[in-house]
């Protein structure tokens, strides 16, 4: 069913990355899973889906190179890269410090910039490839107290468009997904920050979404599956926005 069979998913220990790794495995891909460390979750996931753990901090160039080589040695070239790992803190703009700004850029943007550099030669050798970038609805419409995060994700959208044009002629298709609110572990963090229950947090977010409910991780994993698979072969440089209408009505 799948024409590109070796996938690498960053940030796969939880949330969207976890759902994506499981979905791609179900679709028939061999899936290598990355997160900054393997605290047991990655190896448990890998065991479940017969995957490969390639843990490490993608902001370290030596790590990205080694990760890709490791997958290549085990299975062959990565033909689907899911650039999902992200660092995020929230703070008022004037209180955000420069080190935190750079951490956003180093992980979210530079980390995936170098990871793409590491996988493209293998995709070229394989004759085709898919790069699926997880951006954010917040970089499309903006969000208070998340300026560094949104800026790093906006950089990924520009990367997606540039790579779409540059690598498209070589059969390597780059597209992005800009999710809105998703029912992940982050919700509990947000609830704790707001001092409310998880259910109340979920309801508050859902009320702000035109369709009245937030996305599940599986909704986003479905979008990744589409962009990685044969049904999207005419798409390049595009940004999918499965946000329940948040981005459509405000950008």
């Amino acid at each position, binding site marked *: 069913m799948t024409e590109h069979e070796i996938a690498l998913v960053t940030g796969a220990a939880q949330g969207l990355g976890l759902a994506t790794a499981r979905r791609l495995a179900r679709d028939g891909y061999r899936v290598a899973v990355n997160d900054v460390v393997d605290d047991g979750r990655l190896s448990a996931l890998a065991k479940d889906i017969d995957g490969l753990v390639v843990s490490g901090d993608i902001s370290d160039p030596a790590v990205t190179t080694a990760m890709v080589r490791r997958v290549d040695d085990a299975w062959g070239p990565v033909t689907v890269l899911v650039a999902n790992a992200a660092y995020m803190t929230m703070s008022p703009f004037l209180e955000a410090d420069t080190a935190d700004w750079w951490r956003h850029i180093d992980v979210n943007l530079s980390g995936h910039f170098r990871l793409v550099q590491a996988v493209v030669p293998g995709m070229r050798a394989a004759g085709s490839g898919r790069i699926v970038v997880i951006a954010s609805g917040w970089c499309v419409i903006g969000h208070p107290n998340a300026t560094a995060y949104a800026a790093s994700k906006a950089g990924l959208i520009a990367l997606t468009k540039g790579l779409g044009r540059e690598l498209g002629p070589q059969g390597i298709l780059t597209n992005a997904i800009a999710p809105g609110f998703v029912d992940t572990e982050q919700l509990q963090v947000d609830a704790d920050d707001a001092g409310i229950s998880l259910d109340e947090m979920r309801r508050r977010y859902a009320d702000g979404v035109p369709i009245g409910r937030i996305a599940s991780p599986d909704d986003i994993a479905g979008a990744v599956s589409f962009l990685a698979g044969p049904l*999207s072969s005419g798409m390049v440089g595009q940004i999918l926005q499965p946000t329940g209408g948040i981005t459509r009505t405000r950008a």
Partner: protein
Amino acid sequence: MTGSDAAGVALVTGGASGIGAACCALLRERGWRTASLDLNAADTDVSVQADVSQARAVRSAVERVVDDLGPIDLLVTAAGYYEEGLDVADIPRERWDRMLAVILGGTVNAVSAVLPGMLERDRGCVVAISSELALAGSATDLHYVAAKGAVLGLIKSLAVEVARTGVRVNAVAPGPTDTPLLAADSIWREPEYLTTLPLGRLVRPQEIAGAVYYLATEGSQYCGEVISPNAGAVI
């Protein structure tokens, strides 16, 4: 991949050729029951020959489809035609009227006839076929582009109007697609144009069907979105 367990009933306007026919073929392959509303006969479970610009004909066609196949889960509005190479001054009023009647009017007619049944069941998916030209603008085919742009406005607003129901409304904006609508001497078939596209080729009708199928089966989070399988024509 999603199997026949998720399959339902689809009505495709313009299902006899090009993008509409490709949608019907993919849906049937995946277990859907399909109906076409087209001037010409289509290879579908139900084929109604009618003009989408005629509201009454569309209404009775939809009634027949529901009678024969059951409630409609997916409406794809692909009926349309294309004319190019016309300066704006050379587009007479009758051509404007016909283009708007078929592309915008046809979409309105189909949606008006199908939406009540979807709202009653609180489920359903509408996918309108627009065009990449409606995003980027284009010379020498203004009436077509204006009509396709109007479809986008219609879809975005309708999506918001029904947002709190279980009905999803979205659009697909194809790039230049290899269908009979593109004449053999169309400027969009010229090699000099195709080399400007990141994919370097026309979009295949099956690739539009792929985006439609994705929206129909896994598109519950899309509300008034425009999906663009366009070979990179507009990024």
